């Protein structure tokens, strides 16, 4: 089955989809005045820490979908699966700044991190204070010992939400950074990919995988995972993923968590709920309390089939900010 796309010129894919996003939700999103690859809130916040992110396209709602009250202030938009440029990132930071400094939340990818670093140095000369939080939630991408080398995947949305909520409540950049850092420490994600997606400009699949195989831990651009194996039933697969996640995050009974069951694109809600059911059973057996489940498409790779499971260990503070109100088409409170 060929993956067909409803698009115009492949070279306009990113531009047009973002124009559509802004046109569809003019109350939420706006183009930055100085850069057409930067999205800001429709109504600029004031007197709060700015929360800014950026990253490649093809992952909607990540990244730019999460701009909105109680979430992000601005986002720099790269090409499909590619980092935004330093120039775009500096624009996002300038636009996201409300005079109280900017927390940059960055997925742990070489290009993105480098570009954010340079952008932060540039805006520092202009007097904008920044802090950088590098999201590294994907346990497949490096061992516990090398945690800081892990990639950032679906778990980043929890950080957007929690940092966004605290910033909205007028906290200082250091306070927001501290809580976001704690969230980052407390998040683990592990996914599986079942099929590739097609890059609009390349017109060919991002990787090859046979009809009865899955790859555990594959990244959202098709980066290699832990192992390739035969497709099996949902329950044993979920049990395996849960075991790895729990071994890494080391939860105690009675601890509180939030869960995200994220589709990479084409895997439908019905399957996500079959997965969610099993995750629920596994955690309940260990007397871990699921405070809130998020099931849907949060961080995608266009029409890739597959999913990821994210566990966020909650403190009272994290819980409060996770559950607080926000206004963004891709998040229900």
């Amino acid at each position, binding site marked *: 089955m060929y993956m067909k796309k409803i698009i115009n010129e492949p070279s306009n894919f990113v531009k047009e989809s973002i124009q559509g996003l802004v046109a569809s939700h003019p109350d939420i999103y706006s183009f930055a005045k100085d850069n057409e690859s930067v999205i800001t809130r429709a109504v600029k916040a004031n007197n709060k820490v700015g929360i800014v992110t950026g990253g490649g396209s093809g992952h909607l709602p990540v990244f730019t979908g999460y701009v909105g009250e109680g979430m992000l202030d601005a986002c720099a938009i790269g090409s499909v699966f*590619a980092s935004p440029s330093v120039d775009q990132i500096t624009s996002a930071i300038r636009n996201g700044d409300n005079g109280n400094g900017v927390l940059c939340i960055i997925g742990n990818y*070489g290009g993105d991190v480098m570009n954010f670093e*340079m952008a932060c140095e*540039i805006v520092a000369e202009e007097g904008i204070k920044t802090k950088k939080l590098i999201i590294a939630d994907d346990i497949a991408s490096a061992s516990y010992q090398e945690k800081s080398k892990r990639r950032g995947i679906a778990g980043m949305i929890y950080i957007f939400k929690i940092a966004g909520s605290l910033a909205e409540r007028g906290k200082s950049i250091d306070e927001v950074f501290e809580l976001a850092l704690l969230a980052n420490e407390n998040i683990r994600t592990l996914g599986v990919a079942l099929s590739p997606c097609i890059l609009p400009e390349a017109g060919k699949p991002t990787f090859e995988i046979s009809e009865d195989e899955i790859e555990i831990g594959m990244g959202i651009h098709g980066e*290699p995972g832990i192992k390739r194996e035969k497709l099996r039933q949902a329950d044993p697969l979920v049990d395996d993923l849960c075991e790895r996640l729990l071994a890494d995050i080391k939860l105690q009974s009675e601890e509180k968590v939030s869960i995200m069951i994220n589709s990479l694109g084409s895997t439908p809600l019905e399957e996500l709920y079959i997965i969610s059911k099993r995750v629920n059973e596994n955690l309940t057996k260990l007397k871990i309390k699921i405070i809130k489940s998020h099931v849907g498409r949060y961080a995608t790779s266009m029409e890739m089939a597959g999913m990821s499971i994210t566990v966020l260990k909650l403190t009272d503070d994290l819980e409060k900010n996770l559950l607080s109100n926000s206004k963004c088409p891709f998040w229900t409170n």
Partner: protein
Amino acid sequence: MFNKIEMIKIFDELFIKSKKYYNDFNEADGKIGDGDLGITIQNGLQEILNNKDNFTDDLGHNFMICSQAFVKKSGSSFGTLVAFCLMNISKSLKGKKFLTHSNVIEIFEICIITIKERGKTNYGDKTILDTLDLILNKISETKDNIKYNEIFKTATKEALENFKGKKILIGRARMFDEKTRDFDDPGMLALCKLVEGF
């Protein structure tokens, strides 16, 4: 003597090469990456030349213009690393009107430190770092009558040769794992082609 005039001449020359090899660079990057290396290099150099009228006798100032050109035009790792290198070079050459031999050595040292730091790259990862390292070695061990052009040409070629059959260990290409043994690192290839005919 490397001064403002010479600097513009070199960028003119590099720009011509970047157009000539535009497709080759994209293709080389496309096989194990996202295929934007030709775009990155050409756009960056083009933007530098767009701003050459702002060049002054202060080489440090000029390198800052070059850095900003890459900042503005590139969304790629190569472009950002180049921008970082040019920025750091600019700082160290502030006020200088021409380059001494030790300045040239310093430039390559700065590039190497910058790429290691910013790119989190190690020697042997099969990247431009390995090419620059070889250039630096060759420049350092030559004492008199140095033909920089010759060194650039041989060193960039030799670096490519040294890494044939080895895996690329960093950047987007890493995804392709074993497959990368069969290909030159696109950045190393680009350095080689850009100095061709110097």
